[in-house]
């Protein structure tokens, strides 16, 4: 199994290296190598999943490559194979493969076609590095490498000014999170001399009894570690307040937005917390914090999506909001539900983005939905795919999104987290509203295409859409029961009892959950929002004037827009220039160093006056000194 897992991990890396080697020699070769390597990974991953469940394997952990093996400590790269990592790697490789396939057509006119696949292959490798990791150290490495590939891909169009700004920002914001993650990792490493998951988990009760001193106050060690690690997750999974890089990251090519900034990379944070659930389950205070962060993100950033007009930005905010749901589920210790939503979200959000990509291509890179309309007739397949993805996103009964999202909301309600429950309910309304906004504006209304004979896009772009529709709609129904009853993840996730209890007492089975949902307030809100959206965006039968300050606040994205594009750069420039000019040059260099030499110069200038060059001055000095000396000697005796 370990060798298969190695193939799974390394195939994309080998692909990257081969692509690097062939450079721009042939587009065909690039396509074959990149797609084949991911496909190989995908098949291996499916096969491993099959093996794992059919033969009841136990979780395996192996160290593969020794990083450092000294007298006192040990670091290594390794693989951890269990249901969670295998499920996740299947999701990653499948979405990645479909996006690769889609990109063949989407990127076909790019001059640096090969470079794109180098980056995406490398991304897939780094993501798998996180997913399959068996220790915190490798987790961090993969974490940073996905950050790197995201940086490279957002700035894929190196000539585009806005893209370069966006990727700079994305990398730095992610680095803020990485600081947290690194500190958490180092805390574990320095105190327990190991970074291996299994070893740390077995110590987690001990860690819970330890304290750490910060500014003289002592805190619980486990909470401190979990909190620091979660900061990393906040940045990567775009949670408030470290979310503001994600909307800007839409500057990259659309397939990338689908792969990295919707389906896989941004869910790394969710995956990490779930992976470390044995620790998080013990840290109650941190969990509560996570719950609230998730809820706030889900609700408030969903609102921002309402006022956006760029199709990709809307979906990006929707991604943030959905990630908020997952985070909230993590906070409520419903780890398997979070992973469930992660999986369904990966598919339907990737589908949404790929549809958006098709629309953008069709509309000649017009992204403003106010200028797009009436595409239903021209793009029937895309239309259908988008419809299903949207239904899944808003959680319409029976779709995948329904099972995962309603599951989270109801479970949070079931466990009496009142405020989060209400906020999450409210965000059903916003989710439905902005989804209907895109849907009605883009596919209905007046047609904006110039050429009335436009056809659907190439089949390379359509096939992934069709394939992705299947899991977007049916995955939920398919795995809901085995997941909720705890069979799927088994011991991989802690606190399974919570989910199982919820399942047994509230859900009983997927069909019952489906039927029951029509009677819940969730469905009522959804229908209301749909009706509202239909009349507001499609029929345009009424107009709502929002108070000015609310709309400015939403359009300014709660000030984060100004913060990142105005205040921080100004601060950076002024503050750093001040430090350099005033302190480094003026105080230290001129003040301390050059001033010392200047003072010495002055003194020596004074002293040199004594040397007149006239011999009689010298001799006078000599004689008078001699006389003085003799007098002194005389006085002594």
């Amino acid at each position, binding site marked *: 199994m370990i060798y298969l897992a190695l193939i799974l991990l390394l195939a994309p890396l080998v692909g990257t290296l081969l692509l690097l080697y062939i450079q721009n020699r042939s587009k065909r070769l690039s396509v074959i190598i990149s797609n084949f390597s991911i496909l190989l990974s995908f098949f291996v991953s499916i096969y491993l999943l099959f093996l794992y469940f059919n033969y009841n394997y136990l979780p395996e952990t192996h160290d593969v*490559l*020794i*990083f*450092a*093996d*000294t*007298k*006192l*400590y040990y670091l290594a790269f390794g693989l951890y194979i269990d249901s969670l990592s295998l499920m996740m790697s299947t999701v990653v490789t499948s979405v990645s493969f479909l996006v690769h396939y889609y990109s063949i057509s989407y990127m076909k006119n790019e001059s640096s076609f090969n470079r794109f696949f180098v980056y995406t292959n490398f991304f897939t490798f780094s993501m798998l590095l996180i997913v399959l990791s068996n220790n915190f150290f490798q987790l*961090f*490495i993969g974490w*940073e*490498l996905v950050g*790197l590939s995201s*940086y490279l891909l957002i*700035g894929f169009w*190196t*000539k585009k*000014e806005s893209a*370069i*700004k966006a990727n*700079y920002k994305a*990398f*730095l914001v992610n*680095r*803020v999170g*990485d*600081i947290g993650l*690194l*500190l958490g990792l*180092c*805390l574990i*490493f*320095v*105190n327990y*001399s190991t970074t291996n998951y299994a070893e740390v988990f077995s110590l987690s009760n001990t860690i819970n009894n330890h304290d*750490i*001193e*910060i*500014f003289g106050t002592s805190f619980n060690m486990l909470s*401190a570690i979990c909190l620091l690690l979660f900061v990393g997750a906040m940045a990567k999974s775009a949670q408030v307040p470290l979310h503001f890089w994600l909307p800007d990251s839409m500057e990259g090519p659309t397939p990338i937005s689908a792969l990295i900034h919707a389906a896989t990379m941004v869910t790394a944070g969710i995956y990490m917390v779930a992976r470390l659930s044995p620790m998080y389950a013990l840290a109650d205070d941190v969990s509560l914090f996570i719950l609230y962060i998730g809820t706030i993100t889900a609700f408030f950033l969903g609102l921002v999506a309402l006022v956006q007009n760029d199709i990709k930005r809307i979906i990006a905010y929707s991604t943030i909001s959905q990630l908020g749901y997952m985070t909230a589920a993590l906070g409520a210790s419903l780890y398997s539900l979070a992973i469930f939503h992660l999986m369904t979200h990966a598919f339907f959000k990737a589908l949404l983005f790929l549809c958006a990509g098709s629309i953008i291509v069709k509309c000649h890179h017009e992204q403003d939905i106010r200028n797009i309309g009436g595409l239903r007739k021209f793009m029937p397949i895309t239309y259908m795919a988008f419809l299903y993805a949207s239904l899944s996103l808003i959680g319409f009964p029976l779709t995948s999104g329904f099972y995962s999202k309603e599951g989270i909301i109801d479970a949070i309600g079931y466990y009496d987290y009142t405020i989060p429950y209400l906020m999450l309910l409210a965000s059903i309304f916003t989710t439905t509203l902005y989804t209907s906004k895109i849907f009605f504006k883009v596919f209905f209304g007046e047609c904006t295409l110039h050429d009335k004979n436009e056809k659907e896009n190439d089949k390379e772009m359509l096939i992934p859409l069709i394939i992705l529709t299947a899991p977007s709609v049916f995955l939920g129904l398919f795995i809901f029961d085995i997941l909720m009853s705890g069979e799927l993840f088994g011991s991989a996730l802690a606190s399974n009892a919570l989910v199982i209890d919820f399942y047994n007492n509230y859900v009983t089975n997927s069909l019952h959950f489906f039927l029951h949902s029509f009677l819940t307030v969730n469905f009522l809100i959804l229908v209301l929002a749909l009706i509202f959206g239909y009349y507001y965006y499609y029929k345009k039968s009424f107009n709502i004037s929002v108070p000015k300050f609310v709309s400015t606040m939403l359009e300014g994205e709660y000030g984060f827009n100004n913060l990142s594009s105005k205040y921080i750069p100004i601060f*950076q*420039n002024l*503050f*750093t*220039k001040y*430090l*350099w*000019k005033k*302190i*480094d040059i003026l105080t*230290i*260099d001129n003040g*301390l*160093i050059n001033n010392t*030499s200047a003072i010495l110069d002055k003194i020596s200038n004074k002293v040199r006056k004594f040397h007149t060059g006239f011999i009689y001055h010298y001799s006078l000095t000599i004689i008078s000194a001699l006389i003085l000396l003799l007098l002194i000697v005389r006085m002594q005796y």
Partner: protein
Amino acid sequence: MFDYPILSLLIWLPIIGGLFLVISENMSNKLSEYLTLVITFIILLITINLSINYDYTSDQLQFVERTNWIDGLNIFYFLAVDGISVSLILLTAFINFLIAIYAVSEKYRNKSSFLGYFLILEGLLIGTFTAFDSILFYIFFESLLIPLFLIIGIWGGENRKYATIKFFLYTLFGSVLMLISIIYLSSIAESFAIRDFYSLNLSFNEELFILIAFLIGFGIKIPMWPVHTWLPDAHVEAPTSGSVILASVLLKVGGYGMIRFMLPITTEAGIFLSEYMIYLSLIAIIYISFVAYAQDDMKKLIAYSSVAHMGFVTLGIFLVFHLLDSNLTAAVIGLEGAIIQMISHGLISAALFFSIGIIYKHSKSRLLKDNYGISMYMPIFSFLMLFFLMANSGLPGTSGFVGEFLVITSSLGSNIIIGLLAATSLLLSASYSLKLGKNVLFGENIKNTQGYNECNTNEIIVLISLVIFILYLGLTPDYLFQIIDHTTINIIDSINLGRR
């Protein structure tokens, strides 16, 4: 196993070869290039041989050469290596070989003496890293200044006079203090061997003064904040190869000296002052990173970033003082982190200065605003340079991460706030490194399309070999860990022994 004095050969072969090159001014460029290449290559081979034959599991000094030198004063010609020396010698030989390769495609007036000075420098550097007699160490340490002074002074930029004098006086000032403390120590120990200093019973005040003298002496060399201001000036004026050797190896002499002298000799005073020295290192990491961000000259930016990265080296060393009583494992991690950070910074800064040299060759300007959109014309070079910048910002998988990771780990062993402050480097180093990348590599450049063309073979060889080693040390640094592990633990042990 070795019946020839391998260390002496390593020191004197390049020095004699260098002197020969310096003297024979009329030698043709081709011949001098070949000669330099051959000598540096031989040195590299011998060093590799040395590192293979070095017994990592032993705590003893190895390849010892010890003969009387000045009888009356008990001064010995005493050469030997331990793990730290081996790793630094490997770095020196490797970087000098790269410089020799790089120089082949470059034009300098009076090339043979230019190359000669580099050879002399190489010999002296190896001498500094292998001398175990304090006077011998001091002589090598001091003479390092001369070839570099000449390199910057003769082949430097416009403002080279100011820079060289500043550089020379600054470092000389530090080493005078160092000399005084060495003489004082030897007068008590009645020996000049460094290892004899370790077991001295010094009073606290003596230790304090000696510590401060060493701190200034080595701190200037590293350089630490606030005595760092000579470095940016020297870098800006130095020719590319000069910057490379200065940043990648010469700065390490300071760190090496701290580990060799300060840690074992002045332990008590070090524990007393460790908090303040840690603050100095943190200022170097954070404040200098801010200053680096403000730079508009590429070389200055990298020079400041060197100071910030060397802050990790000093932090790792001073943390040893801080952790001696509480957490020995963390102390070992910190010291190993400092050593690895030295090696890794040697590779990365060399790579960045080479890259800037290549850009400068094309655009004749080092200013950020004059260089942009290079990736349009030099895709391979840009890719490599982006890699180096990422390595500079401590990306995992590159060597830049390993040292920082270990030092931060060690700092968490003492105090989480120190760790947090040190870890901000992750953000700050990324911000200035990528600012450089953003401005220089990316963007659209339609103005001077003629200026840039892809690097020549020699430059590619140099850059690629640096990439390979940066990746190697970033992914499987186990070999390096094996080299230094015993020595580090041995040093920490001997410190603890000396205290009792």
